Structures are given as structure tokens and as C-alpha cells.
């Protein structure tokens, strides 16, 4: 096993690769390399997990709803990024109750990985949860939007109807909207800033540092993902999955733009948000706003 790397912006990890799933059906609707979907499907089929929390389809178009998926079909339904809040952890305890799971998988963004780890170490009315979390797959996340924000960005700024959108993407300084009929609209990210969820502005994690395995788009070419294998559990699952032919991989060093761009963006996020946190200390006159990291 390679020695653990401890990066101030990318967290602790054993290895980092660029990868994509070899499962064509998964790739058909995956946001990037299909890593989150393929890993959870593999873990379910191998008995590493017996169910997983994923961002399923909600009541309105592109509004995610967390569900406890216990089959390949249900996991596949959660493919694709929804740039809106999906309260994944709301099902964490219930997964061990009426669903009767023994080995729970969790997918989500950085803050949701933090929630899982906190529940494992400080289970406050979270009985049975610490021992039943079996695998966590975390996504990279720069910021998120409330559903109203997403509506405004897509329907007003990009002038597309949410019902016809096939895929959304934030990349290269723009918010991209692809429609089923092949249209592409973009919105400069500068225009979207005011719609960000304010709580994201104190977040100091870009690449889901606390997940077993984290995955995201930045650093790898289109259709591929940048993957960090972080924990012993993550390493075990990843090694087995790669040996079983579930993934194509390339060393991240051989890939453009690679870790250089990823580190740059991670640093930007953390530096900017750390500044926000500092400003909260002097938000009032002789008084401060709360700092959850204090």
C-alpha cells in the first residue's frame, strides 16, 4: 500500500487516479465517469453494503429527493448532478430501522460526509448509526443552490425550461444547461453567485476529505472522474472493484489538467470561505456571529 498523502487542500488520501466505469449502461446517464453509481452498485452486488442513500428523483424536475436504494435500478435512478439541496442524512438513521439495513452506504457532498463522520463519533440520538455505516462516497462540491435559485438560473438566466433539461454542469467558469433536443445555454458563474446557499460560504472542504472514496469532475477530461481513495475501507473496495474490471484508471499524474487545477480550485474555495469565517468574528459592533469550527 502506498504511503498516506496529507494535502492541506485535498485532504488525506492513499491514491488519486483518473477513472471511469466500464459499465456502459451506467455511463449513459452518469454526470462524469460514473464513479459514484458504479461503486455503490458494485458494493451492493458484493455485499459490502445492503442499501445506500442516494439523491433520487423528487416531485419537481431537477429537484433531488434522498432515497434509500436497495437495488441496482434504484441506484441508477440517482445518476446525474442536481445542483440543488438534497438532505441525504435525513434517512441515515431510518436506513437502520424500518429498512432493516446492516451495512449502510451513503453518497453526498463534502458537508454530508462530515455529518456522517460526526454521527459516527458523536451519535446524538443516532443509536446504531456509528456501527452500521459501511461505505461513504463523497462528491467534490464548490457550492450548492436552493431549488428556487436553480429555477431562476435555468429558467431566467439560461432561458430554458426545466422540463426539457438533460444535464447541467458547472465548468470552465460557466453554468451549462444541455437540453434533450440538443440546445446548450450557458450562464456566467458571476451571475449565479447571489443565488448560492449562504451556508456554503463557510465550508472548508472541496473534495470530500472525510469520505472513504471521493470523486469529482475537476482534474480529469470529460467523461472521466478524479478519484481519491482515502480510507482503509475505501482502498479495500476500490482495489477489489478495479481487480474485478469495474473501472478504467489512469494515474492522475498522466492526466490533464490533473491535480494542479484541482489544488488551485480547492485553495480558492478554502481561502475565500476562511475569510468569510474570519469576518463573522467581527460581524457586529463588539459582537460576533457563531463559528462552528471554534
Amino acid at each position, binding site marked *: 500500500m502506498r504511503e498516506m498523502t496529507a494535502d492541506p487542500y485535498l485532504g488525506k488520501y492513499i491514491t488519486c487516479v483518473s477513472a471511469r466505469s466500464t459499465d456502459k449502461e451506467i455511463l449513459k446517464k452518469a454526470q462524469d465517469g460514473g464513479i459514484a453509481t458504479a461503486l455503490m452498485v458494485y458494493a451492493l452486488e458484493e455485499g459490502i453494503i445492503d*442499501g445506500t442513500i442516494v439523491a433520487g428523483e423528487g416531485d419537481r424536475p431537477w429537484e433531488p429527493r434522498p432515497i434509500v436504494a436497495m437495488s441496482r435500478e434504484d441506484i441508477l435512478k440517482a445518476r446525474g448532478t442536481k445542483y440543488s439541496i438534497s438532505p441525504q442524512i435525513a434517512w441515515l438513521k431510518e436506513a437502520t430501522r*424500518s429498512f*432493516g439495513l446492516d451495512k449502510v452506504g451513503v453518497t453526498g457532498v463534502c458537508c454530508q460526509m462530515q455529518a456522517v463522520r460526526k454521527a459516527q463519533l458523536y451519535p446524538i440520538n443516532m443509536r446504531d448509526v456509528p456501527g452500521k455505516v459501511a461505505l461513504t462516497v463523497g462528491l467534490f462540491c464548490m457550492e450548492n443552490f436552493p431549488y428556487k435559485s436553480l429555477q431562476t438560473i435555468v429558467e431566467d438566466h439560461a432561458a430554458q425550461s426545466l422540463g426539457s433539461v438533460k444535464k447541467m454542469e458547472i465548468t470552465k467558469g460557466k453554468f451549462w444547461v444541455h437540453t434533450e433536443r440538443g440546445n446548450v445555454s450557458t450562464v456566467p458563474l458571476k451571475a449565479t453567485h447571489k443565488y448560492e446557499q449562504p451556508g456554503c460560504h463557510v465550508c472548508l472542504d472541496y473534495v470530500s476529505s472525510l469520505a472513504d472514496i471521493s470523486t469529482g469532475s475537476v482534474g480529469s477530461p470529460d467523461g472521466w472522474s478524479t478519484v481519491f481513495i482515502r480510507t482503509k475501507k475505501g482502498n479495500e473496495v476500490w482495489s477489489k472493484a478495479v481487480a474485478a474490471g469495474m473501472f478504467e484508471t489512469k494515474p492522475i499524474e498522466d492526466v490533464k489538467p490533473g491535480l494542479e487545477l484541482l489544488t488551485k480550485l480547492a485553495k480558492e474555495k478554502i481561502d475565500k470561505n476562511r475569510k468569510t469565517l474570519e469576518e463573522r468574528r467581527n460581524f457586529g459592533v463588539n459582537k460576533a456571529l457563531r463559528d462552528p469550527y471554534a
Partner: protein
Amino acid sequence: MTKVVEISPTTRHEGHSKLTLKVNDQGIVERGDWLSITPVRGVEKLAIGKTMEQVPKIASRVCGICPVAHCLASIEAMEASIGCEIPKDAKLLRVILHAANRLHSIALHNILILPDFYIPGTETKINPFSKEEPFRSVATRIFRIREIAQTIAAIAGGEAIHPSNPRIGGMYQNVSPRAKQKIADLAKEGLVLVHEQMEFMLDVIRDMQNREYVTVGGQNIPIPKTLGYHNQGVMATSPMYGSSSLDENPTWDVTRWKETRPWEWYMGEVTIDLEDPNYPIGGTTKAGTRANPQMEACNSVPTYDGQPVEVGPRARLATFKNFNEKGTFAQHIARQMEYPDCLYTILKCLDDLDTSGKVIADHIPQGDGSMGWAANEAPRGTDIHLAKVKDGRVLWYEMLVPTTWNFPTCSRGLKGAPWQIAEMVVRAYDPCVSCATHMIVVDEKNRIVAQRIIQ
């Protein structure tokens, strides 16, 4: 000459209580009072005006050993008041939850009583905390039984302690097919263990019935053959689950119940004049101390046909299965005999459970102020909640919990026992004193006695 001795607090049961005992020259109890001294929390009074959804969740917090009983009795009292029939699969999940809770409670009570008992045929008392055999394997078995019970309760009820799944009109969640299988697997494992545990306990209890004496604090104390006998009779509503005023033929009669005040049944002021510093561990109350059970009792006294009654496992077996022994050891025996039924009930319910069935009533009326009641056969006996709900809010609420019924009955059962084993008589009731201490006691002028005691 009559002397007064007091054991305060009593131990190895839930909650805070004491025994004020008048004894003869031989130390035999002539008149005993066992009373709650757990501060009154007044759940019934603070329930008034709150929503019918919230009150059962508060009532659940009366007790962490039998929260299921209070949660279910409370919800079903609300459902009885508003006239809401719940779907079949919700009822099945409630019964599974109920049976699992009874299972864990019996096993927990084993831990509490075993230190009074002997390894059959020896002079060695059982210490469930010892690493030695056979204690260790008995304790391990009890822990696994409880773990199984709590896990089943958590799956069917949402949470083992203070179940989250029950709601007015049914349940929040049905379970997954996987969860159903998991409960079945656990129940099958548990069934083997509870048969072993029941046989073990019955041997231990029968050995005790054959003994002439027990050792307490280094002294040999004779065991009367009639230990714990009383003539109060029994009350039970069902061998397993309960009954409610929605039933076609309810098995409890509200007109036979009357709430009375402690001083109709308890002694007045006495002065302690017998003291034993060697009573394990820490001695009895100091001589010269005054006690006044009438005023100090934080429980009220519900009566059935004008008398206190015994409730619990023996009451259920006597009512429904013609169990005809009585007294302390009969109560212990009856409790062990309830072990297997918990798991057979769970397995039977699973057979009938449709995991895709609906678990919430289509229509939940908001109530017109009618009185409804529900009885839940809690591990310790009949737990009856009565409620009047109007426009979704609780107008009136009353809880008649098992140990409240048992307090004055057990007090009468103390007569004839050497005072040193009065606690053994108490423990055979598996008392849950915080359950029994939830009410505001009002005196003749409608002043609140409990509040006066707190002041």
C-alpha cells in the same frame, strides 16, 4: 411490641421508592407500606391543551424500560377518543413492537432479581456481574436476548427506547422485505435462547421455593411458604396486547375503576424505632426519623371494584390461562413463562405482515371530546390511558399504569414477610416506579398535594 423499620431507598427495580414497615418482635411485617418517592412529573396535567400527536411522545418519556407501553396506550387512547381505526399492517407492527419490548423487559428484570437467588442446590447467590461461570454465560445469554429484543423494537417501532414509528392513525413507516426477514431471523435465534433462559430461571425459582431460609447481610432469614400472598385478586385485559374502547367487546370496564387518594390506603405518621446498620448496603433509615406514607406517597391508588388489584404476568396467566398459584415465587414463575410467547407472537405477526400494505388510516378524525381509553398489557401489567380529544387537542388525560395498581396490592402482600426480605416481595412485581409517578395528587380541597411536597 410493634416497631417501625424503613428501607429507603429500595434497590434493583426501576425508579425511587421506599418501604415503611411495622414489624412484630420476630421482625415479621404486620403492616407494610411500599410507596413511590419519585418526584411527581405531572404528565397528565401538562398534557391538557397539547395536540394528540404530541402527548403520546411525552407519555413515552414516563419510562425508558416500557416506553412502548405508554406510547401505544396513549396513541390508542387518542384513537379511541376520535374513533380512528388503523390499518391491519400498522396493528401488526405495533404488536411486534409490543412483544419485543416485553421480551427485553423480562430479560432485564432477570438481571435485577438474580442476586436474590441461589445457584440451585448450593449456598452461592447469583452474581450476574461476575466473570466466573455459570454467571458469565447466563449474563451473556440475557444480554443477547435483550439485544435481539431491542433490535426488533427499533426496526418495527423506529426506536427501541421511545419508539418513533407509532403515530395517531397507524405508523409512519412499513418495513422493507429485508427488515421483515431480519426480524424473523432474530426471533428464531431468540426463541432458542428464551427457552434456555426460561428453564434456567424456573429451576432457580423452584430451588428457592424449596429453601427454608435466605441469607441477607450475613443473617439467615426464614422464607415463609406464603411469601407475598394477598387477597386482592388480579386484573388483566389480554394475554399479550391489550384492549380499547373501540373494541367490540372491550376487556376492561371503565365503570369498575375509581381513582382514590393514598391516605385511604396508606398509614399516617410513624416514627422509625428499629434500625439495622447491617442491611446491605448502607443500613436502614436512622431511628428517630419520622415517616408519613399518606403524605409522602407520590403515587395515587386506582381501584377496581373498590379495591386495589394485582396486575402483571401472574394476573394475565391467572385471568386467561387458569394459572392458580400466588405469591412472590408464583409471580416470578409467571413472568418467565411469558418469554416464549413474545417470540411466537412476533413470528406469527410477521407471517401476516404485508410489507407493501398501508400503515396509516385514510381518515383521521379530530375528535369531539368523547372519552376513549386504551389498555396496553405492559411488561408489568395493565397500562390504561384515558383521553378526551377535541379538535385535535387533548382536553383530559389520565394514566393508570401497572405499578400504580400494584403499589397498594404489594403493600398488603408484605404482611407475614420477615422485613429483611420485604424487598424480594417488591421485586416480584418488577416495579417501575417512575411509571407509577406521573400524576398530580389532589387532596379533599382540590389542592395539589404533590406540589406541596415539592415545595
